[in-house]
């Protein structure tokens, strides 16, 4: 392999005319000087593309929301009515307290659940509790309430309503109602109901 060991010498001979000259050096310096400009140009192109993509995504999200049914109350379908007074086109339909009472009045309650795990699943008991709520709930001045305690009222058709409840208070998100009798009745229920 003498030939290989003499490769540097051979290369100097056959590639004698191939050298990195001043012209190449100038090319390099010029290219390096233009690099930051190129980065700016790339950035300039990237910004409108990114904005367009975000706009398309936002449009898609809005469109999907518009297409979502306001409420689905087919048999067996779970519909959640969240508390609040403004009706919007969001997946959860927001009702005022009065509308919730009206909604409850038109249906048969099958179950009342509290976030702490209490479940009342006897329909007759639920009906009694609702009649207390309907008759004795009174609006009170707005108060700051935590957002963790939720009461779910499920109906026999599969739909359900959620209210924030803090004994003796309930809220639809805008107005606060008090109903001590309702919570007393729940507390007086025998265990296991």
């Amino acid at each position, binding site marked *: 392999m003498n*030939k290989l060991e003499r490769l540097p010498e051979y290369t100097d001979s056959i590639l004698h*005319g191939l050298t990195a000259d001043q012209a190449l050096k100038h090319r390099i310096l010029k290219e*390096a000087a233009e690099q930051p400009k190129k980065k700016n140009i790339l950035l300039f192109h990237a910004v409108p593309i990114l904005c367009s993509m975000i706009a398309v995504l936002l449009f898609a999200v809005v469109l999907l929301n518009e297409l979502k049914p306001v409420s689905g109350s087919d048999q067996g379908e779970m519909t959640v009515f969240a508390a609040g007074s403004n009706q919007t086109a969001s997946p959860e339909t927001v009702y005022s307290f009065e509308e919730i009472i009206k909604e409850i009045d038109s249906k048969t309650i099958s179950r009342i659940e509290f976030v702490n795990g209490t479940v009342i699943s006897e329909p007759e008991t639920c009906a009694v509790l609702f009649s207390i709520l309907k008759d004795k709930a009174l609006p009170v001045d707005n108060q700051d309430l935590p957002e963790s305690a939720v009461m779910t009222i499920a109906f026999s058709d599969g739909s359900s309503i959620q209210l924030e409840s803090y004994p003796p208070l309930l809220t639809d998100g805008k107005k606060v109602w008090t109903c001590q009798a309702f919570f007393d009745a729940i507390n007086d229920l025998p265990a296991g109901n």
Partner: protein
Amino acid sequence: MSQIALNHEQETEKRSFDELYELFATDVLRVSYYYLGNREQAEDVTQDVFVRLLINKPDLEYGKEKAWLFKVALNRCRDLWRSAWIKKTILGHPGFESFPAPDELNRMTEDIDLANSINRLRPEFKEVVLLFYYQGFSVSEISAILDIAEGTVSSRLSRAREKLQKDFKGDEKP
């Protein structure tokens, strides 16, 4: 000046772009040319390597600059080689053109044969031969430049030598 003091001075010294260009640009250009067999592409690779040196300003230890330059150059060569693979396969690999000094025209047939043989090697063999025999890097330095195990470098060198040996024998046949 003591050896320790000299070494310390070298460690803290940084070579300028001009120095690095003068010292290594021709080597980078020629190795790229061996690799690609195309002068324009070899110049483009050399340009890319030194532009990157200027833009990225890597923190290179004294004496390690050459290894960095060849690492970048060979990566770029590999990219170009891969992108041109189909073209080469269809149109055939370009011949190795020489650029001799005017007074050496008559005595370089053997040199060109060697260059052509190296040029015909597969890239992974070409790389180790050029770095070891042409640029004088050690096996461990080549291992670091190419990101492969030292054993792989040795085995590729050995296989490349075998291939070249066969090629030379073939050339010697009448």
